[in-house]
């Protein structure tokens, strides 16, 4: 996709006057000089390690003795014997499936609320965005633990309605919900992207729809959603990929354990425990590769499925 876009200017240049082709010849060597930090990084810190972790995933490795080839053992154990692995998979899937739609739904709703062109919108937009900057920090995760912990705000508010949940972070039924709540709290970033998308929707479409007698709901379904669908796809892919890699919130809220009863054991948290507390680096590498494949597959599926619902103005279906 990027290839075709990039070779085009290169071809045009060959037909251009001497100044450009001279600079082009000189540019060849210079380009690699400019690119050298990236080339070193891509080789030594990306491609090399990817291959290395693929190799390690077929070995037993504890960082100190040399890796011992065990074939598919890590993968077999992961899928058939390791209960905690499945706890991690379950918790992560629940986390992704619940948090991403809630986050995007809230982001879209607030974006619609703000998209009225009223005064002060910029200020509100910034205020809504603030949690996205703060939410990844240890500080806020600690606040969350206190708020949803023993005697915290959440329990008291629910208590007013006669619901007694006690300390939510200490109960398997609710602990993951508190982690999800922290993810949803950071809806500001996708909201800002939605807002930018809403501004692009041509006003005439709404006027035409209103003239045709479409009410607010109809206008939303028939105009806003289709026009916003490329942005929605972008947000969906981005948030899904990020959600699969969430770590800090679950780590801090569960004091690094992923408890109670593995209910907040997100995938990367278990990977961390296996790799860096048990020093089972082969196993952790196998986990990382499964994550890569699953995230890759889901991304492909999202884009494939997008053909059916994403609408590009003036281009028909892509």
């Amino acid at each position, binding site marked *: 996709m990027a290839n075709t876009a990039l070779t085009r200017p290169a071809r045009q240049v060959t037909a251009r006057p001497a100044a450009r082709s001279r600079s082009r010849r000189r540019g060849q060597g210079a380009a690699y000089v400019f690119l050298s930090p990236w080339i070193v990084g891509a080789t030594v*810190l990306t491609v090399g390690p990817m291959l290395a972790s693929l190799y390690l995933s077929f070995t037993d490795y504890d960082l100190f003795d040399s890796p011992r080839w065990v074939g598919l053992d890590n993968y077999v154990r992961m899928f058939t014997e390791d209960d905690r692995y499945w706890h991690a998979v379950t918790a992560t899937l629940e986390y992704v499936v619940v948090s991403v739609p809630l986050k995007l739904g809230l982001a879209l709703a607030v974006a619609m609320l703000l998209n009225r062109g009223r005064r002060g919108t910029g200020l509100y937009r910034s205020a809504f965005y603030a949690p996205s900057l703060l939410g990844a920090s240890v500080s*806020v995760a600690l606040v969350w633990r206190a708020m949803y912990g023993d005697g915290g705000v959440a329990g008291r508010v629910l208590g007013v309605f006669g619901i007694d949940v006690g300390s939510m972070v200490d109960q398997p039924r609710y602990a993951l919900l508190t982690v999800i709540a922290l993810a949803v709290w950071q809806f500001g970033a996708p909201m800002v992207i939605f807002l930018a998308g809403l501004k692009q929707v041509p006003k005439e479409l709404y006027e035409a729809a209103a003239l045709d007698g479409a009410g607010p709901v109809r206008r939303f379904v028939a105009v806003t959603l289709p026009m916003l669908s490329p942005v929605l796809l972008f947000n969906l892919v981005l948030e899904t990929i990020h959600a699969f890699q969430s770590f800090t919130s679950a780590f801090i809220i569960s*004091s690094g354990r992923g408890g109670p009863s593995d209910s907040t054991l997100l995938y990367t948290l278990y990977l961390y425990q296996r790799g860096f507390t048990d020093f089972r680096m082969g196993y952790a590498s196998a986990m990382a590769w499964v994550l890569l494949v699953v995230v890759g597959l889901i991304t492909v599926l999202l884009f494939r499925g997008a053909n059916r619902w994403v609408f590009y103005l003036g281009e028909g279906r892509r």
Partner: protein
Amino acid sequence: MTVQATVRPAAGVRRLRSVRSVLWHVAVTVVVLVLLYPVIWLVSTSFKPADEVLSRLALLPEHATGDNYRQVFGGVAGYSIWQYLGNSLAVSAGAVAGNVLSCSLAAYAFGRLHFRGRGPLFGFMISTIMLPQHVVLIPQYIIFHKLGLVNSFWPLILPKFLATDAFFVFLMVQFVRGLPRELDETATVDGCGPFRTFWYVILPLLRPAVITTSIFTFIWTWNDFFTQLIYLNDPSKFTLPLALQIFVDQSSQSAYGPMFAMSVLALVPIGLFFLAFQRFLVEGVSTSGLKG
């Protein structure tokens, strides 16, 4: 809209409209307050004396006190808070310098220069934006372990000097492509090679992208917990997030006050950046997000 501009609406309609506007502002403000409640509560609790911390719902402290802060500045886990602040600052500043330098160099090459393999390399660079870091994490750790660099800042800073944050390379490539080509050509006619063109023409014009990159790199590194948790294990090297976590592990529930005071200190730089650059940050998200 155009009709309204020429024909003044009747007084009743105008009043209705202003009532709706007030209602809108009230509604949005309420949502903002609910949303920011955890942060407000965090700040106020950090000023509460120990016996008030437990009665945690009241937003304002009855007897505000600086005791929690005094305790934190008296040292945490055997080291001064300034040490952790300094460590966090060193790591973040190093990361910013690395990203700005390496990403702008790579972006100039990808965005302007012609070389064999540009298409495939660019495609590869883009694909690494979405790569989960866990798949390179363990071999990277092994490399730094073999080099004896675990428990130093190098594993946190060095990769930034090698343009591993592909997102920022992409951001800057987009920006470089938007600059008028005539500028480079003029520089070339004046006898500037690619290096001087980069330094005197491209880099100064790249300033907005450099600022966006710097702000986000700083905030993300400052907040980063995962990488720092993996690479730093000696308390003297701890950054603020690590010190905060250790502090919580070592103290009981009753230490909420000092814990929150430290949490606030850890968020202060983010807050300052946010207040100073909020427009920049939000615009950065909406434009780079849409281009992506």
